[in-house]
């Protein structure tokens, strides 16, 4: 029995569409909860005033949150020198653009696909090594393709001995949280 129509053309289109859809599923959804809620929520950490006993004090930022933190914004007042230290094995860009006023969207930051980008307020930051950046006043850590980098943030503040300064930070996290669910931010002194 012969068929009167050649379906090769339509099968090609169908197969191509099916293949593209399968590729999309693999990339976009496998093991990835597609959170319909793209709103981001921020929680301000209470400011604290610390009387430094040494020129350099080390700090650690963490957040207890059911959804990943996407970025942190840290500000020190007065504008003292800050050193951000990336985790071992993570490189940060050798430069950082001055941070725009306030926290803006990712479009205003440079995001590396395999590193965190640290934007610091003017003057531009300088790099002392592959994973250390120095800036002044404030920094925004945008974790981009590595949200785990925002889980535990380490940085130091350099000032005069006994100089008082205020540290404040807030985090932006992904997704919608159930009502009443809070994000617990912690800013603790730590060691180098």
């Amino acid at each position, binding site marked *: 029995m*012969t*068929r*009167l*129509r*050649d*379906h*090769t053309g339509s*099968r*090609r289109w*169908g*197969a*191509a569409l*099916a*293949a593209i*859809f*399968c*590729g999309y*599923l*693999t*990339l*976009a*959804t*496998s*093991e*990835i*909860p*597609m*959170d*319909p809620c793209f709103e981001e929520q921020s929680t301000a950490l209470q400011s604290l005033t610390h009387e430094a006993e040494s020129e350099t004090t080390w700090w650690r930022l963490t957040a207890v949150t059911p959804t*990943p933190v*996407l970025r942190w914004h840290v500000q020190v007042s007065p504008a003292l020198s800050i050193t951000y230290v990336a985790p071992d094995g993570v490189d940060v860009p050798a430069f950082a653009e001055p941070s725009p006023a306030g926290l803006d*969207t*990712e*479009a205003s930051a440079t*995001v*590396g*696909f*395999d590193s965190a980008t640290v934007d610091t307020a003017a003057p531009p930051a300088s790099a002392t090594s592959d994973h250390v950046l120095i800036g002044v006043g404030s920094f925004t850590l945008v974790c*981009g*393709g*590595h*949200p*785990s980098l925002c889980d535990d943030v380490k940085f130091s503040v350099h000032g005069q001995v006994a100089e008082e300064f205020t540290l404040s930070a807030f985090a932006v996290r*992904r997704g919608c949280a159930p009502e009443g669910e809070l994000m617990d931010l912690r800013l603790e002194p730590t060691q180098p």
Partner: protein
Amino acid sequence: MSREDVSAPVWGEPLLHPVCLFSMAVWWFNDHVGKVYAPSALTGKVSDVACLVVFPLWAWCLLDGLASSSFPRKYRANHALRERCLYVVTAAIALWFALINVSEVVGAIHRDLWTSVYGVMHFRLWQIGGYWNPVAHHTVDAGDLWTLPAALLGVWVGRAWLMAGSNRQ
């Protein structure tokens, strides 16, 4: 004047099999609706089943198509070789799936690989003004090993397509 059926084999055609189409639909629905609005142990497994049906077959279709184009005489005409390739691809993916669900180390590698992929996609999308920032999550769960037999469905579809193709010739 009647025409004979001259349909030639088509890349990716196994994906048009009802089993594959249904699996894709289930996969999409589960990830976009089920896991979001009614998460449960079932939704955690359904996607794995659908993925194991479709993904190895998709990967094989890609490799098979490339090999058939590159080596039409040596590869395309050799159905035994193509079938073996299907088995190897499916076995490799199934093995990786098993490893990421029993080993924390391999699971972490898997998560890091996807994180890098998503990071690139996020960056490229941002460059053209888009925004999409999926987060790579993976939970090592030995219970997922129960879904491994689903990969056999993909093998069945692939073999059926190969046999239909050889019958056409």
